[in-house]
C-alpha cells in the first residue's frame, strides 16, 4: 500500500489555517504575526527545496554528494548552536566546541547504525542515511545548545563561588563539578522526557510517517525504538563532549577561571 499523494491545493488548504491563526493574532495584537508568517513561509520553502535536493540525491546515489549534504547539515546545526547561546566562547573555540561534538557523535552513530544495525545496500543509501543523520543531528543540536548555554551563563553567574574554590586550591574540575552536572542534566532532560513519553503522550513523528506510508505498525515501532536509542546516545555523547570541552576551555594552564574567553561578559 502506498501513501495517498497530496496536491498543492491540499497544502494551500492547510496554509489557510495558518493564515486564520495569523488573523487571530492581529485581532488580539499578540505581536507574533510577523514571526508566525515568516516561520510558515520558511517551512514551505525550506522543505520544498530539501525535497528537490533529496530527489536528486536519491536519483544519483553517490557517497561524495551525500557527504557534501551531511557536512552542510552539520554546518547549519553548528551555526544554530552558536546562535542559541547567550554568552558563547569567543572565536574559533566557540565554533569548534559546537561543531566537533555534533560531528563526532552524529556521524559516528549514523555510520555505526547503517553498517551494523540497518545494513542497507549500499550502506550509504541516502533514503536511510540522510533522515537518520538529520534526526540525530537535530536532537544533538538542541542538547549541545542547552548544555553550553547553561554552562557558560552559570560560570558567569557563579564566578565568585568558582573562584572561592580555586582560591582554596581546589582543582578546576572540582570547582566546576556542580556546574557540569547541572549543564548535562539540562542538556539531556528533553531526550529523557521524550523517551519516557514516547507512545503514551505522543506518537513520535518518524513512526507516524512510516505508518501513514503504509508500514505495518510493529515494523514502524521497531524503527522508532532504534531511532530513540540512537538519538539518546548521540545527544548524550555530543552534549558531554561539548560541556567537558567548554569547561576545560574556561580555565587556562594555571587553572585560572578565564571568563575573558567568552564573547562578552555582561
Amino acid at each position, binding site marked *: 500500500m502506498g501513501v495517498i499523494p497530496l496536491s498543492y491545493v491540499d497544502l494551500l488548504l492547510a496554509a489557510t489555517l495558518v493564515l486564520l491563526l495569523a488573523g487571530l493574532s492581529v485581532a488580539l495584537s499578540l505581536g507574533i504575526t510577523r514571526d508566525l508568517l515568516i516561520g510558515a513561509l520558511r517551512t514551505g520553502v525550506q522543505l520544498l527545496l530539501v525535497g528537490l535536493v533529496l530527489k536528486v540525491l536519491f536519483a544519483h546515489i553517490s557517497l561524495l554528494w551525500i557527504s557534501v549534504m551531511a557536512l552542510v547539515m552539520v554546518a547549519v546545526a553548528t551555526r544554530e548552536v552558536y546562535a542559541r547561546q547567550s554568552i558563547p566562547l569567543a572565536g574559533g573555540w566557540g565554533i569548534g566546541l559546537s561543531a566537533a561534538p555534533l560531528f563526532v557523535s552524529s556521524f559516528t552513530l549514523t555510520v555505526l547504525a547503517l553498517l551494523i544495525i540497518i545494513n542497507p545496500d549500499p550502506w550509504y543509501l541516502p533514503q536511510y542515511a540522510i533522515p537518520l543523520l538529520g534526526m540525530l543531528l537535530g536532537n544533538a543540536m538542541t542538547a549541545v545548545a542547552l548544555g553550553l548555554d547553561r554552562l557558560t551563563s552559570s560560570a558567569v553567574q557563579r564566578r565568585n*563561588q568558582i573562584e572561592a574554590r*580555586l*582560591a582554596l586550591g581546589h582543582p578546576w574540575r572540582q570547582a566546576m563539578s556542580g556546574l557540569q552536572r547541572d549543564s548535562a542534566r539540562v542538556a539531556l532532560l528533553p531526550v529523557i522526557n521524550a523517551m519516557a513519553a514516547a507512545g503514551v503522550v505522543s506518537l513520535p513523528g518518524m513512526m507516524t510517517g512510516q505508518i501513514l506510508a503504509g508500514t505495518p505498525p510493529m515494523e514502524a515501532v521497531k524503527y522508532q525504538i532504534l531511532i530513540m536509542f540512537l538519538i539518546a546516545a548521540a545527544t548524550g555523547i555530543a552534549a558531554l563532549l561539548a560541556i567537558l570541552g567548554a569547561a576545560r576551555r574556561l580555565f587556562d594552564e*594555571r*587553572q585560572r577561571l578565564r571568563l575573558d574567553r567568552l564573547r562578552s561578559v555582561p
Partner: protein
Amino acid sequence: MIPASPCQGQTITELATLTVIIGTVITILEIERFASRQHGLADVPLSSVTLEIRAGEVVTLSGPSGCGKTLLLRAIADLDPSTGTAALDGKHRDQYSGPDWRRRVGFVATESAWWTARVGDHFMAPPDSGELSALGLSAAVLAREVAGLSTGERQRLALLRSLGNRPRIILLDEPTASLDHDTTLRLEALVRAYVASSNCGVLWVCHDLNQRQRIADRAFQVHGGALRPVDKSESQWVLSH
C-alpha cells in the same frame, strides 16, 4: 588551638633551605616588577610592584578604592594572569601547579562565597572549637546553613576555611570590613596567633589607620600607581601632596 606546624606541606629540600638560613631574615614571598594583566597591559593601576614578605610579619597595604589593591592580591594568588615574577620559599611560581600555589598563598576575598548550603561542607577538615571560639563562633555553626549567617560570621568562617590549608602567605582583602570592633580585635588576634605559630607572612589590605597601627610590621601606601613604604602610624594623607 592553632597547630604549631610551621613546616607542614613542605618538601625536604625546602626544610633544608629553611634550616640553613635560620637566624637571618627569611623571605617567604617575593614579587618583582609584578602586575595584574586582567585589564590588558595598558590600564593596570599598579603596573610594577616589587615587594617581599618575610616569615612572621604582617604587611599592610592601603590606598583609595579603585587603586588596584584587590587586583594585585588576586594576581599574587594567581587567580588572574599577571606579568613579572613571583616566588614562594625561593621557588618560582611556575614550579608550583596553580592549585598548589593557591593552597600555599591563601587569598581571602572581601566578600566570601559559598557553593553548597551547609557551612561544614566547605571545610576539608572542620576547624577545631578553639579556633572557632577565638572568633566568637561555636562549633554548632558548622551544621548551620550559610544563608542563615550574617555577613560578619561568613567573613570569619571564610578566614578559617583558608587557614585550613595552612598557607605560607595569607592575602587578606579588608577582612574586617563587616565586623564590629570586638570581633575585629578577635580576628586580628587570631591572625597574629596563626602567624606566630606557623611563621607565615601576611599581606593585609586595610583602610583603618588604627588597625594598621595595631597589626602592621610594615605598611605600604598606594601612591601614584606605586607602593610607597610608610610609617605605620602615619596618616595616609601625609603622602598625598
